[in-house]
C-alpha cells in the first residue's frame, strides 16, 4: 500500500496560539485512517491543514512523497484531496443529480449555446450512486428529502466519482442516529475498497473502530498515540482517548443506564 499523504512534525500557530504541535501522520491508499480527538483537540485545524485552508507554520506536508504547499482549498481539490464537511456538503433544495455534478457539470453544445447534458448527468449520478450501494428511485428529488446519512453518502460518492485520491470526512456520523451512522460507515468502506485513502475524523471511538485500519489520537494539539488495527481493541481505544475523554465516555454510559 502506498502512502498518499504524510505529515511530518507539522505545527500550526495562529499568532500566539499553538493549535497543532509537531503532528506527524501517514495516510495510505485503500485504507481508513481515523483521527480521534475530543472537542478542542485540534481536529478542525488538522482538517483545514489537510484540505488546504491553512498552511502549516512549520513541518512538512507530503503528497505521494512530494512536498506540497496549497494556497487554497481549490488547489487541494485539484490534487485529489476532497473534503466532505458535516453540514456543508450538499444543497438541500437542489435535486440529487444537480448536487452530484455541482461544480463539475457536464455540458453539450458550443459557446453561448452550451447547455447542461441533463440526461447524461441523471443517468450517471444514478449509476454512480448505485455502484456505491445507494439506490435512489429518482435523482430528481431535492437532496433535502434524503436522510442525513444518505446525504453524506451522496457527498462521499460524489468525491469518489470525481477522482478523489484522499477523502477527508469531517465528523460524518456525529449528527446522525445509529442506523444513519451505519449507512455512512458502509460508504466509508466502499470508498476504501475503491482504493481511496480515507481520513475519518471523529470523536466516536465506536464508529472509528468499525471501519478504521489505523488510529491516531489527538489531544491538545498533539498526536498522543497511534494504533494499528491488528493490535488494538475497542476498549483500549476508548481508554486511550485521554483521561477527560475516558471520563466523558463513562459519564455518557452512566447517564444512559440511568436514563433507561
Amino acid at each position: 500500500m502506498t502512502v498518499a499523504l504524510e505529515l511530518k512534525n507539522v505545527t500550526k500557530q495562529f499568532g500566539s496560539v499553538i493549535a497543532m504541535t509537531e503532528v506527524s501522520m501517514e495516510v495510505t491508499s485503500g485504507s481508513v485512517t481515523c483521527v480521534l480527538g475530543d472537542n478542542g483537540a485540534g481536529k478542525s485545524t488538522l482538517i483545514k491543514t489537510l484540505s488546504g485552508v491553512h498552511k502549516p507554520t512549520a513541518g512538512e506536508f507530503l503528497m505521494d512523497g512530494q512536498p506540497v504547499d496549497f494556497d487554497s482549498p481549490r488547489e487541494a481539490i485539484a490534487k485529489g484531496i476532497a473534503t466532505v464537511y458535516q453540514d456543508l456538503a450538499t444543497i438541500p433544495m437542489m435535486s440529487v443529480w444537480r448536487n452530484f455534478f455541482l461544480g463539475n457539470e457536464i455540458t453539450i453544445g458550443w459557446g453561448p449555446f452550451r447547455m447542461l447534458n441533463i440526461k447524461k448527468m441523471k443517468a450517471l449520478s444514478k449509476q454512480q450512486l448505485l455502484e456505491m450501494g445507494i439506490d435512489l428511485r429518482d435523482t430528481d428529488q431535492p437532496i433535502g428529502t434524503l436522510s442525513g446519512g444518505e446525504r453524506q453518502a451522496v457527498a462521499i460518492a460524489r468525491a469518489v466519482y470525481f477522482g478523489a485520491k484522499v477523502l477527508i470526512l469531517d465528523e460524518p456520523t456525529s449528527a446522525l442516529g445509529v442506523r444513519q451512522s451505519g449507512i455512512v460507515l458502509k460508504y466509508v468502506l466502499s470508498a476504501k475498497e475503491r482504493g481511496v485513502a480515507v481520513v475519518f475524523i471523529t470523536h466516536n471511538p465506536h464508529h472509528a473502530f468499525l471501519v478504521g485500519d489505523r488510529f491516531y489520537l489527538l489531544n491538545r494539539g498533539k498526536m498522543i498515540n497511534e494504533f494499528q488495527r491488528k493490535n488494538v481493541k475497542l476498549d483500549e481505544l476508548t481508554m486511550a482517548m485521554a483521561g477527560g475523554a475516558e471520563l466523558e465516555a463513562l459519564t455518557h454510559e452512566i447517564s444512559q443506564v440511568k436514563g433507561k
Partner: protein
Amino acid sequence: MANAVKDERVQKTSPITTLLRRPEFGALMGALAIFLLFSSVDTTGNFGQPGGIAGWTDIAAPIGIVAVFVALLMIGGEFDLSTGVMVGTTGLLTGVLVTELGLDLWTSIFLVLLFAAGVGLLNGWLVVTTGLPSFIVTLATFFVLRGANLAVTKQFTGTVRVSLTEETANYDQAAALLASKIEFAGASFQISILWWIFFTILATWILTRTKFGNWIFASGGDANAARNAGVPVIRTKIILFVMTSMAAAFVGIMFVLRLKGMQAGQGVGVEFFYIIAAAVGGTLLTGGMGSAIGASLGAVIMGMAYIGIPYALWDSDWTFTFLGLILFTAVLINTFVGKRAMKGRKK
C-alpha cells in the same frame, strides 16, 4: 447494501405532486383565478378579448422583463432595490446623452447599457466585498440614483423632464425595435410583449439548462456548500447583479423611446413590483428556489389587476391594496403547497 435505502422508495410520486412541487405552479393557478375573477366582473366585455389582453400584457411586459432577472438574482440569494429607479436613471440618461450632449441614439443606448452594467457591477462588488446585506447596499444605490436623477435632470434641462423627439436621428429604427406596435387579431400589441417573452425564455433557459443556472441555485441555496463544491459564488452573484441592472436599463430605454421623454421621478417604487412578481411566482426570498416563468406569471397577475379593476368599475385607488393581498395570498399558498409536496415526496 441497498436495503437500508430501499424502504425510502415505497411510494411512487404522482404526477400531481410533481406539478405541485414546481415553484411556478401557484402563480399559474393564481393567474387563472385572477383572469376568471376579472372576466366575470368585467363591465366592458373586453377583458378576455384581444383588445383587453393587449392592455394588460402591455402593463405586464415591462414589469416581467425586469422581474425575471430579479427572480434569478433572488434565487441566487440577493436583492436589488435599485432596479426601479434604474429604469428612470437609464431613461433619463438616454435622453440627456441624445438631446443635451448630441450623441447618436444607438451610441447612447450602448453607453446606457454599459452604465447599467457598471452600476450592477458596483452593487455586486460592494455586496460581496463588504459582506453587507444586498438589501442595504442596493437601498443605498436606490437613494443615490434617485437624488442624481433629479439633480442631473434639472442641471441639464432646468426642468424635471428630459425629452426625446421623433426627429432624433435613428429614432425610427430604435423605436421600431423597442417601442412599436404590432397589429394582431384586431388589436394592437406592444412590441415589448415579444421582448418579455424572449427574456422569459432566455432566463428560464439560463436557470434550468446551463451551468451558470446550476450555480445560481447553489449560491442561493447554500453559499458555503457551493463554495466547497467549487462553485465561483462571488462571480455568480456579481453577474446576477449586472444582468438585473441591465434588464432595468433595457426597460428604461424602451420607456424613453415610447414616451419620447422621461420624468425624473420615473420608476421609483417599481422595484417592489418586480420583487412581488418574483415572490408571487414562487421565488424564495431566502434564495435557492424559484422560477423565471413564475416571475412572468406574477407580472401577468399585476397587469390583469391594473386593467381589470377599472374594467370592473371598481375604484382603482384600491389597486395597490389588491396587489398587496395577492402577494400575501400567493406566497402563503406557495409556501403551504410547496411544503406539503416536499413532505409527500419524502416518505
